[in-house]
């Protein structure tokens, strides 16, 4: 396969492993091999001392977006749902079984629809400090940070996880539905800086292993090695066990790069693995096989939603949106007003929401009636003619019968006067009011060792 000439504007990215994989290849041979495999090799993530190589593929977005793991999902008998224009598995067998597997053993998730936007340059950190609400230049190489992209008026454009993969580079992971807006905003906002933005979403697949058995499963896979390290995998197993929450480990799978991060969206221990799409099916199958003895099952988006709800984690489009300030969503701590530089949305964030703006709360019911997104919240379960009884004071943003807790749980925006934990409220569930109690989030936290 011939490679296009490197456009002068494109800064590239490559493996630090290049020279170090040797013993079997010279650096020159390895680079040639990388070049020929560039379309299916993750070579953008971490820097090298040896040179730069153009790697971004120009694959146009497919009309109907299918994950690189689509065939594996078909083989596993998945049911699919449209999610942000992608056909993604909603479940393989049973939402509940998949949910319980993640809480007690492990689940394997395909999250290849997520957007990965890479920011590279000497001023990449400063550029992200200006573009995002947090202080990204302050995180260490290999560290990750949850952050927000704010509008000028202080609203939430998207929530993100940012990984620092080198001194001069970061990977920003965006919700699938916001990939383009995030990439465009990052391009605009970082323009004054010596940094460039690459939307690598089409060239990066994402597989998550989540659940208490995740570490044992990953440790049992022999094909992993620490990037640049020995190939026997022992080093990898040790480094993986020592990896802290919200840190990542540049590694290889079958000698191809994979970024292994201890992050997730389920409330359990677990890992997220960023890998080239061509390699995703073999990684998926290896993890399925390795996980079988540990109780791992493939898990769909339905279980992911109930898992994150129990863990009190917000979902864009439900708990987060352009019209909401982070402070309303309980994310005020993510907006770093202490940083000494300006950032988009700073002025509006300093003023903050109106004092009577609705705030996000947890709600717990008894019985089995789930309050769902869009249902209205009232101060009283008694539906009378009294004005106080008739005026909705909030709205549910997510809700389900909690598979782990056995009671209905929901997140809702309510007036601040009704936001104190313990406050008795009511939700109108299709014409009938049911009692709910304001509950501190999260509903569920795993027992930590």
């Amino acid at each position: 396969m011939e490679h296009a000439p490197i456009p002068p504007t494109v800064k590239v990215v490559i493996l630090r492993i290049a020279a170090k994989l040797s013993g079997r290849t010279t650096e020159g041979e390895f680079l040639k091999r990388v070049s020929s495999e560039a379309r299916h090799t993750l070579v953008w993530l971490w820097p090298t001392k040896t040179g730069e190589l153009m790697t971004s593929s120009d694959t146009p977005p497919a009309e109907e977006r299918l994950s690189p793991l689509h065939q594996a999902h078909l083989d596993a008998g998945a049911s699919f749902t449209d999610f942000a224009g992608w056909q993604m598995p909603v479940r393989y067998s049973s939402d509940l079984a998949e949910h319980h597997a993640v809480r007690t053993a492990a689940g394997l998730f395909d999250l290849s629809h997520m957007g990965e936007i890479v920011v590279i340059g000497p001023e990449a950190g400063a550029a992200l400090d200006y573009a995002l609400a947090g202080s990204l230049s302050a995180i260490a190489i290999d560290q990750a940070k949850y952050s927000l992209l704010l509008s000028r008026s202080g609203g939430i454009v998207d929530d993100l996880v940012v990984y620092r993969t080198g001194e001069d580079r970061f990977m920003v992971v965006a919700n699938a539905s916001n990939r383009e807006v995030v990439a465009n905003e990052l391009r605009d906002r970082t323009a004054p800086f010596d940094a460039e933005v690459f939307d690598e979403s089409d060239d990066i697949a994402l597989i998550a292993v989540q659940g208490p058995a995740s570490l044992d499963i990953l440790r049992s896979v022999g094909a992993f090695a620490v990037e640049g390290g020995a190939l026997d995998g022992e080093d990898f197993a040790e480094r993986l066990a020592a990896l802290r929450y919200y840190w990542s480990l540049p590694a290889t799978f079958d000698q191809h790069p994979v970024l292994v991060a201890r992050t997730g969206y389920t409330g359990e221990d677990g890992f997220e693995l960023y890998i080239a799409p061509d390699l995703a099916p073999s990684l998926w199958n290896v993890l399925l096989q390795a996980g079988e003895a540990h109780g791992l099952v493939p898990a769909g988006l339905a279980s992911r939603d109930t898992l994150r709800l129990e863990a009190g984690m917000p979902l864009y489009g439900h708990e987060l949106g352009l019209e909401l300030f982070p402070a309303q969503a309980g994310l005020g701590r993510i907006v770093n007003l202490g940083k000494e530089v300006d950032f988009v949305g700073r002025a509006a964030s300093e003023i903050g929401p109106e004092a009577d703006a609705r705030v996000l709360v947890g709600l717990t019911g008894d019985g089995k009636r789930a309050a769902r997104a869009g249902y209205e919240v009232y101060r009283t379960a008694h539906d009378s003619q009294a004005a106080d009884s008739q005026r909705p004071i909030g709205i549910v943003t997510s809700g389900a019968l909690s598979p782990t807790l056995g009671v209905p749980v929901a997140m809702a925006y309510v007036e601040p006067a009704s936001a104190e934990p313990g406050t008795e409220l009511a939700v109108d569930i299709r014409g009938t009011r049911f009692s709910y109690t304001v509950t501190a989030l999260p509903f569920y936290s795993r027992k930590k060792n």
Partner: protein
Amino acid sequence: MAAPQELQYTAEHEWILVEGDTATVGITAYAAEKLGDVVFVELPAVGTDVAEGKVVGEIESTKSVGELFAPVNGTVVEVNDDVVASPELVNSDPFGAGWLIKVTIPGAIEGLLSYDEYAALIGE
């Protein structure tokens, strides 16, 4: 319970088994699979008069809420308390232990789908 081939169906993914003047009503395996794990079932009380096409109950899964429509005019004579206590029966045995209500019917029911017609509707 009868085999799926011997049942009649509605476009709302319900099945009906007519035995004499009683119709047993459930939802199809296709509907159960689309709903996902059923976690809550609400059924009408025995003695309730139901009218064809009207909502008489709810079937909730973790992900969504499905409504149970009365497929016929009649009076509810029995409800499946087992399925209220164990909603997962709707998934595990939709044409058997997952039945929902029994309704007395005044006479023959018009406009139901045969097994083949229903299979064509859901594209199988």
